[in-house]
């Protein structure tokens, strides 16, 4: 493979030359190029140039012999940031370095624990964080909630797409089902019925159905899972691309029903309040009794909490929603991981890799696929219900096809089948969608100009095109995603026999 004599074409020649370069020279060339890049970027934005140098330093530190050089380098880097006054970055780096100095068996546990701690504490240090070049300030806590909710949905979709290999282009239908479940059972939507069950912070004689959100979250999950089974039973025997289209169809029909059902089937019954959506929803909270029992550690009502000051930070209701979302996400991740290595999870992987072989080994195809759908839908429903509660509103306009593709893009970018990859990909894309693109656009419009001509791009307008580009580039150059699952990567590079057993279309045509 690596015989330079055979190298034809400029690209291969360069590659061969690179391969045979001694390590030290290779490092020299790379560092030189990186410095050149930094100098070039210096003229656009100073901080970007520093960021490139810092990243380059981080990368090359990894390759140094650990003691004493790596340690010394890391100390120098941390000290440098302290000297430059970027305290927050220095602390972040110090924590990261400390975790990676742990021996592997501790690191395995320390990494998720530290990640959790860092996330939980985020509201306390968010305003003290450094400014990222291009992307601007760190996302605020409300964006954090948004990110967590979408990570939850991506982890749910990952069960369907990543584990079981069924392409679902209508995941937004599950999101919508969850959101509307929460909206129906915790708002003034049905004024002719009065039913209260543990709802917080409202007059007990208020009309409408008011069930506590804590009950509604699992309920929404279950209703959505049931809905997923309902969709799945007739459609899951279709082959992959037809299944994708059918799910897309459901994903388009459902929001339209939501939009048109302020006069449900012409009966005059207002089911969804049409394009105006259902708002407001009841608030989340633990109620006065539970709150006073726990010495007001658990807030009675999320929306009327906030007089406590912890660690110099005024607790906001957004913070409470943020922490609750973390708890839900941890639950989702836990379930997803347990599922992955369960009997069912292995059956999913078997189906994904070779349906015929899996069926021959006794895996019940329909039941296994339906379970994948139901599990994915369950988490989508919870996430939808929670997000509706957080926004205190549900609009049919939130459930476009774009959102389905957006969540799919998260799964693909992160790495289909790998839960850590999906979490990283989803948080990044959700951040981009909420704040990142706007910030990037602002940066481009202030810093990039040709002569006196400024581009004045409205970057968030092109969000879906940017996701399309991400999907295209990832599928072409790294189909296994940023953080691949090893198994999935092998499949995607070697190809698998995905001739389905239930080939309904062919069975009909060729019989």
């Amino acid at each position, binding site marked *: 493979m690596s015989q330079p004599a055979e190298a034809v074409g400029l690209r291969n020649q360069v590659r061969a030359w690179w391969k045979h370069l001694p390590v030290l020279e290779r490092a020299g060339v790379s560092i030189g190029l990186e410095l050149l890049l930094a100098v070039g970027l210096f003229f656009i934005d100073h901080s970007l140039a520093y960021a490139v140098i810092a990243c380059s330093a981080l990368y090359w530190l990894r390759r140094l012999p650990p003691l004493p050089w790596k340690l010394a380098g890391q100390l120098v880097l941390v000290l440098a940031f302290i000297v430059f006054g970027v305290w927050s970055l220095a602390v972040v780096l110090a924590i990261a370095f400390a975790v990676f100095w742990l021996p592997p068996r501790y690191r395995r546990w320390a990494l998720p624990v530290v990640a959790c701690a860092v996330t939980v504490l985020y509201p306390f240090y968010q305003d003290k964080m450094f400014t990222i070049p291009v992307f601007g300030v760190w996302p605020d806590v409300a964006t954090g909630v948004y990110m967590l909710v979408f990570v939850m949905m991506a982890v749910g979709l990952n069960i369907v797409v990543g584990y079981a290999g069924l392409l679902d*282009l209508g995941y937004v239908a599950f999101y919508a089902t969850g959101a509307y479940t929460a909206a129906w059972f915790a708002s003034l939507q049905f004024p002719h019925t009065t039913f209260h069950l543990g709802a917080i912070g409202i007059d007990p004689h208020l009309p409408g159905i008011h069930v506590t959100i804590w009950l509604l979250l699992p309920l929404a999950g279950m209703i959505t899972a049931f809905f997923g089974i309902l969709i799945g039973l007739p459609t899951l*025997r279709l082959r992959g691309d037809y299944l994708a289209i059918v799910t897309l169809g459901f994903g*388009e029909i459902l929001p339209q029903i939501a939009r048109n059902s302020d006069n449900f089937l012409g009966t005059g019954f207002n089911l969804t309040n049409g394009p105006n959506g259902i708002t407001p929803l009841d608030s989340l909270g633990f109620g006065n009794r539970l709150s006073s029992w726990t010495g007001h550690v658990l807030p009675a009502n999320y929306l009327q909490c906030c007089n406590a000051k912890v660690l110099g930070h005024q607790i906001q209701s957004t913070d409470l929603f943020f922490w609750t979302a973390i708890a839900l996400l941890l639950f989702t991740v836990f379930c997803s991981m347990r599922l992955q290595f369960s009997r069912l999870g292995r059956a999913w992987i078997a189906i994904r890799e070779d349906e015929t072989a899996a069926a021959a080994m006794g895996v019940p195809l329909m*039941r296994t696929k339906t379970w994948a759908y139901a599990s994915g839908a369950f988490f989508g429903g919870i996430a939808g219900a929670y997000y509706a509660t957080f926004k205190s509103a549900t609009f049919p306009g939130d459930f476009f096809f774009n959102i389905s593709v957006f969540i799919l893009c998260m799964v693909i970018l992160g790495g289909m089948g790998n839960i850590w990859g999906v979490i990283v990909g989803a948080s990044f894309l959700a951040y981009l969608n909420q704040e990142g693109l706007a910030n990037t656009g602002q940066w481009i419009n202030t810093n990039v100009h040709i002569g006196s001509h400024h581009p004045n791009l409205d970057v968030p307008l092109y969000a879906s*095109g940017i996701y399309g580009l991400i999907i295209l580039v990832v599928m072409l150059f790294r189909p296994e995603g940023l953080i691949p699952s090893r198994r999935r990567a092998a499949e995607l590079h070697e190809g698998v026999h*995905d001739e389905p057993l239930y080939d309904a279309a062919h069975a009909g045509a060729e019989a």
Partner: protein
Amino acid sequence: MTDATAPALGARLKRPSVVGLFGMLFVGLLLLWLGINLVKAPSDFFEILLIGLTTGCVYALVALGYTLVYGILELINFAHGDVFMLGGMFTITFATSIFNLHAGRGFVAVPIVFAVLILSMLACGLLNAAIEFVAYRPLRGAPRLAPLITAIGVSFIIEDVGLAWKGPNYVTAPDVFPHTKVFSFHGVDYGWNKLIVILITVPVLLALTYLVQRTRQGKAMRATAQDQEAAAIMGINVNRTISFTFLIAGALAGAAGLLYSLYVTTVRFDQGFQLGLIAFTAAVLGGIGNLPGAVFGAVLIGLIQAFNEGLNWHAPGSDWTQSIVFTILILILVFRPEGLLGERTPEGG
């Protein structure tokens, strides 16, 4: 749960199935509904029928693109609808910027429209072939869902190209098709603008049939659709044939874009995706991979849409068009995935 015990198709047909009965009942009710509407307002009914026929023609051109590509690659080319949308924008740009076409220029418009037709077909064909080269060809050996996913990505990219190019609002096309009547019969008016759509569609369809059935290149397409490896062994350049198929499909989308933009006179960047899905439904309805089926399905969908939006007596109305079309899509895929006329690859047969 498993359908290992499912009876063969022949046995299933002989036994009157519940699904079949329900299907017949449904079709019967539909015909009854149409009949009542016909009796109540005959002139409206026929007028709507003619409108449906016209939209059906536009859908047919787009649906043929889906079906051609599906026949040869078994790929649902999501980007096709957006290529169609760009076709409309190409048409508007060529017509207004190059030829300075506007309403009321008389018969000078005829050669100009033909020139624009050729240009926009060419542009869309090349664009579609380029899409194939960039986004689908590198994934020839990958799992089947991989190119489908890139197709969605490409669709979004093209949509945003349209957005960046023409902005978020409707782009207006010159209203060059004359609105004078071909005939007027008992209150049923048939305008020239509708006839022109059919007059342009039919020759394009004939040319396509000739191309696929009678030419060497068409033979290569049919062979590649049947069996890529065997076609390659017989000396057919498979990659070039696939590119050619995309070129043809894109050209059809370009023609559809011209007809749509000049007939409806407005185009917006996000219309391609919806219309593409409707056309895809038409292709599935007729039997994907089946060229006459695509036309048949498209006319049927065009009629269904027109009746739904136009009829007065108990029609769900345009709010529900999309839901109805997708329900048809789902029902067809679940209960009769081979379509009404049977699934075929473009070998015609």
